[in-house]
């Protein structure tokens, strides 16, 4: 065994019982546990390697508790995160206002964290259209406005779950590539400055 290597920190945020743990459970263990709701205590961490092209990227997923009790503590879980999956329950409009709260929080404290809005429990909507309380287009508009991605998933059926995490891994992979290019690439402004600097130095 070797020490854990994590490439990208991913944090799950959202009101309690929207299904953050179920989403992780579906993605990591490919299963959906039926039974009485059990809230998460504090936060749970799981590392999951994922193939992107010819590379393997390890996502370090932090599944946080939705309870208000841990709110003051939440910064330690999302600090330095490269991606945040902000979950809301498609059948519960109040959970979307909570999602807005987390978006604001992230925009204030973690500007480099990409936001993925995720409407959960899509299977309930499929079964009964009238159960929907959060409009798809409203969320899409909000997502465009804040530069976020938008998914609707079902952990019960697995619908869109792998796609969500794949997108996160791809985005991370691309941004890491961009970052590398930034470092090595030619920046005219930068060059000018350094040129000027050398001049003055002489």
């Amino acid at each position, binding site marked *: 065994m070797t020490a854990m290597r994590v490439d990208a920190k991913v944090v799950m945020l959202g009101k309690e019982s929207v299904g953050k743990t179920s989403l992780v459970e579906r993605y990591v263990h490919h299963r959906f546990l039926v039974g009485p709701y059990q809230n998460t205590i504090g936060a749970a961490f799981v590392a999951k390697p994922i193939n992107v092209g010819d590379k393997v990227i390890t996502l370090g997923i932090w599944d946080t508790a939705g309870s208000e*009790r841990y709110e003051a503590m939440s910064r330690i879980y999302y600090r330095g995160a490269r991606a945040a999956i902000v979950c809301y329950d498609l059948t519960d409009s109040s959970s979307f206002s909570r999602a807005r709260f987390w978006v604001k929080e992230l925009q204030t404290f973690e500007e480099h964290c990409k936001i993925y809005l995720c409407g959960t429990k899509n299977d309930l909507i499929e079964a009964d259209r009238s159960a929907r309380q959060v409009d798809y287009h409203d969320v899409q508009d909000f997502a465009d406005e804040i530069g976020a991605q938008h998914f609707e998933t079902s952990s019960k059926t697995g619908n869109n779950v792998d796609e969500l995490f794949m997108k996160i891994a791809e985005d991370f992979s691309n941004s890491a590539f961009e970052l590398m290019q930034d470092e090595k690439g030619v920046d005219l402004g930068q060059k000018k400055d350094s040129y000027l600097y050398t001049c003055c130095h002489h």
Partner: protein
Amino acid sequence: KPDEMAADVHNKGVTWDTMNGSLAPVDRLRSDRSDSPTPGLVEGTEPGAGQEHAQHMFVHAQSFEDLTADSESNPDSELTGSSNSALVDSEEGETKEEEQRGGADNEEEQKEPEEEKQEVQSGVRLKEEDVTSEAWRRHRKHVFVLSEAGKPIYTRYGTEEALSTTMGVMMALVSFVEAGKNIIRSIHADGCRVVFLHKSPLVLVGVSRSSQSDRELSRELQYVYYQIVSLLTLTQLNHVFQHKQNYDLRRLLAGSEHLTDSLLRLLDRDPGLLLNAVMSLPLASSARDVVSASLQAAKAKSLVFSILLAGNRLVTLVRKKDQYLHHMDLHLLFNLVGSSSSFREGEGWTPICLPKFNTAGFFHAHISYLEPKSDLCLILVSTDREDFFNLSDCKRRFLERLRKRSAYQALQEALRTPTYPVSQVGIPELWHFVYKSKSSGLYTSPELPVPYQREEEHERLIGLYRYLHSCLHHPTRPLRSVYRCGDTENLFAWATSGFELYLCFSPLGTKALAMSAVTKLLKWIRKEEDRLFILNPLTY
């Protein structure tokens, strides 16, 4: 002779062991450990006591009373009247214990019409009980928690919303009596005991139909209080209510109700919470020593306690030098782990306050199972909330070492027999027992025999032990030993400065037989102590 001490009454403070002329005082050195224990075993030499006296795992105290003592309010001493003043604002002079007998009829009258009104109120969740029903009233033990503004925080049965007026009445009773510079402790009426515990900013009320004493009930309410503090810290609790007196604390406690529910179940069933002791997993001492040493080696700077559990049994506990864990805190950790499936997946990282250690701040606990389907759960308690990956690495190192030294196999084996039948002792009339070694804070007990495996019978047996326990720990007239014959079982309990022993015999047995059984049992425990107890606890 043992028969003579049955039902002997001794005053507190008398050293019982030296009263028995045949027993020489025993020194605490390892070399003096006796092979055939005699009643004179003092603390530190009894079967199950740790090898080196300096290395206890738990907060150490000479007596049960010390262990349960609470700086703010000590229910154990309330009956003596000596520390009553600690319960009111210090300047207030004389305080009196208030017991309202007969006055309870009035309370019943007050309650009923209000409960009827509840029917109009909506918001009763599905599957929740109707608090106006006879079935709700008949529950053996109710527990309510409310704020000083009378706002409901927790109820064991039914919904808090439906009980807001009832809790309002409870607060009114508390305030009314306190306004007269008194403290309401309990109301006895109609086969019910209503016990009050005011621990600002919370008020806890227990209503019991059992034969439990006020003291016992009050102690259980304290446990519930500490359960809440462990989630929030007392500092935060005070802060919240200073800021807003009528704050609805359920917002902050959301999702934790099942922790309190399960704690109350443990209090009904687990003798460890009664005895302030923990049961360890029976394990060959050589294997346990390897496990302890591996945990000891996997240390980190911020680490204070490393605890390995197998279900509700302790495998080992390694602690920072000079830092001791209190039983109550360990039971709260047991309860947290045992009642949450959330640690099954991945690695948990949660703030937790250990209230008997410090009510003001959070520790951060790394909680994970050694394998997804295993019963072995590792809890690493740290002072640093940023130290997750460091502790995760400690776990990895611990596992690596454990596997290398093939102790993992032995541990898995031991998990298959986490308990033993009482027949191993070889006393046919002995049905069940609980033995607590006072100096190690550990106890051992065989599996419940068939007649006691049903839930009600299990709780009845614990109720009997609780009764015996209350006789041994009576605040003013503690008994040294008790023998009681019943229709369904005979009971015997015995306390020395080294151990406490509770036995349950067939009702056909005699007292003489019980006495000889004790000697035989103590010999057996001494013989098995390597396996049943943790004799070599380690520190980092």
